[in-house]
């Protein structure tokens, strides 16, 4: 029932979206996708093959964080705490009261893994809406699927962490991420890091809460089990229908995320990308596994080409000379085709 509500909400929203992103949605519309998939299916053997699930099964007790944008007061203490916890230059906590940073929209970068942005509140200009951005820790993360060496891991507890020892700095994770979260140390030539929120794995291993969760004066960040957090979010919306719109951002977006948002304003207006419910690596992995499927397609192709090679050679054996090689080829190819 809830899902249905989300859908109607989307329908309501569409006409008001900026044209290009509306179009993007239309493009990724399921029906259109299926249509196109049909074209590719013949060559890629898509769809018939089950898509491999994520390597690790997620824990039932995995983490969830709910960011209540109606509660956040924009004090930016989370930015300070995050920097401090990750050993980045943080400065004085009092200096974070400076609201001039809100003049421009900011994204997390290698100097701050989380940032808070201000949005206008039409109902009351004295009470702006603040939105914290950081890694969403997707349930089916595109970055983990994309990483060439598996340097990014979706952990059992739900967090997505980066492995310094593996990363080669190719930045494909940044290309893959729908929220544009991973950032890169552009001005380092040796040992540049991919920087993103790691849900304070170090702090949590010591039994502490993530730094941002702990410092938030308003507990705008609700930290707990994902299932509990979702329940709490639904309750909040049910109890205050005037305050919240009926949408938990991240409950279903690209297969669900660890960090979720509730808001009184449409998420488009808070610069949150409108994403479908299909997982981000879904299509890509389907194609990938379609092409590779236990190495059957490549080996088949190899055998096929070998056969062609043999047939054509056989057809011209009289003129081509080099009969010795020809014989060898024939036997080899026989082996090849029978094994293939």
């Amino acid at each position, binding site marked *: 029932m809830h899902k249905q509500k989300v859908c109607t909400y989307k329908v309501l929203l569409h006409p008001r979206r900026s044209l290009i992103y509306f179009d993007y949605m239309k493009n990724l519309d399921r029906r259109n996708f299926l249509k196109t998939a049909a074209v590719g299916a013949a060559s890629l053997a898509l769809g018939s093959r089950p898509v491999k699930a994520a390597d690790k099964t997620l824990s039932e007790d995995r983490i969830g964080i709910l960011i209540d944008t109606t*509660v956040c*007061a*924009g*004090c930016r203490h989370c930015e300070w705490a995050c920097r401090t916890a990750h050993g980045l230059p943080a400065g004085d906590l*009092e*200096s*974070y*009261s*400076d*609201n001039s940073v809100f003049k421009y929209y900011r994204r997390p970068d290698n100097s701050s893994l989380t940032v808070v942005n201000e949005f206008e509140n039409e*109902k*009351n*200009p*004295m*009470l*702006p809406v*603040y939105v914290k951005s950081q890694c969403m820790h997707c349930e089916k993360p595109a970055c983990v699927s994309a990483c060439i060496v598996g340097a990014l891991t979706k952990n059992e507890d739900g967090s997505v962490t980066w492995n310094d020892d593996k990363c080669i700095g190719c930045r494909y994770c940044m290309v893959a991420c729908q929220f544009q979260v991973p950032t890169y140390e552009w001005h380092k030539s040796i040992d540049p890091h991919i920087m993103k929120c790691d849900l304070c794995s170090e702090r949590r291993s010591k039994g502490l*809460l993530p730094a941002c*969760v*702990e410092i*938030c*004066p*308003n*507990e*705008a960040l*609700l*930290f*707990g089990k994902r299932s*509990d*957090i979702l*329940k*709490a979010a639904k*309750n909040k919306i*049910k*109890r205050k229908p*005037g305050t919240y719109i009926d949408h938990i951002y991240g409950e279903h977006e690209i297969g669900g995320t660890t960090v979720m948002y509730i808001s009184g304003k449409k998420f488009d207006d808070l610069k949150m990308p409108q994403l479908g419910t299909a997982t981000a690596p879904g299509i890509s992995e389907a194609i990938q596994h379609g092409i590779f499927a236990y190495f059957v397609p490549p080996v088949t192709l190899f055998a096929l080409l070998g056969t062609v090679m043999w047939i054509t050679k056989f057809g011209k054996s009289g003129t081509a000379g080099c009969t010795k090689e020809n014989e060898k080829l024939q036997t080899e190819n026989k082996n090849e085709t029978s094994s293939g």
Partner: protein
Amino acid sequence: MKKIHFILIPLVFFGFILGKVFTPDTEDKKQISTEFSQDKASQNDAGRFHDNSLLRVTQKLNCKSCHESEYPTKDYPGLLSCPRSDMISVYHSPEEGPEFVKIDEMSDYYNGVEFSHKVHAEMSEMSGGCTGCHHYNTTGPVLNCRKCHESSRSREDVSIPDLKAAYHRQCTNCHKQWSNENGCSNQCHTPKGSDVSLVSSSVKSKTHPVLTLPAKLVWETGAKTNKIVTFFHNEHVEIFGLECKSCHNQESCIKCHTVERNIDPAKLTRRDRSIEEHHKPCANCHMGNSCQKCHRDRELSPFDHSRSGGWVLKSYHSSIACEKCHGTAMPYIRTGHKCISCHKKFSEEFDHKLAGFTFSEGHTGLECKNCHPDGDFTKTPVCTDCHDDKSFPQDLPGTRK
């Protein structure tokens, strides 16, 4: 006078029990140390505080206030969402509460926070009352935040914010504007060890001017025709019995005050509002009405039952409450103009002696409609159906009492 005993004895008993149940334990008392102004009068006010709250318990509680079913069990309590806001019928005036409250329970980085309670209580008078902050407080003494809000952030049930969040949310609900001059340590918190008071002296004796309820509001719209809109505020409150909050919900100071900091706050400004915003409060009830209901080419005259209802309220009817006929819930029930519209059992039980005469023997067996066609008892009775030469009231179907 005797009746007073019957009310007072149970009330005192009830109050005693409530007092036992809700008296904060000693630890809680420490948490909010209240600071009163020096004069004795306000201390007396604080003394009155508890008594008043007990005397004003008026709401009716039954199982169905909280449970879905008539017979809740322990396993299936079928709890409804807490009707807390409906339960509160206790009214405290701002003067009853403390003038200042010092919140120093959670002070790890800073000194305790001085909170100007009275000024805020006065402001809340205009926007939802005490419950804006003291939510979940049904009856009895004001509960300590700590009663429900745990002090630890890592806890089992995160649906209720922790204590730190509970405090901060109360303030940041309205105070959301940060700047270098207006950060944590300049607004509420002083660093540990410092003895600077952040509550300015101007706040200490500040009161909001008393608000007077408007009787009638008239607007002129930009339309070419029907440009006058009249709104009778007094009628909506007095006659139609609307509560303030049914229209004035989700409002804040900026309803009247300008948002610019450098403009004299006493000066009131009106914000430009969209057409939807203008219509929203009215549309809650008047959704089905035509535009003409409010938009006219002249000011409307006050409510008149004969004009609005098409029926003059005569004799006894003019003194009864509206809900006698139109029901208690909004929107009011439309009733017809006939007597039986309200007097449902009129025909069977009516003692015709009340009309001034008793029927003669020949008339007792007749049905009402024989003389009062169409069930309309306001018209002159018809005699000509049986008698060619008789007419009411010259001739009576009986003897005058």
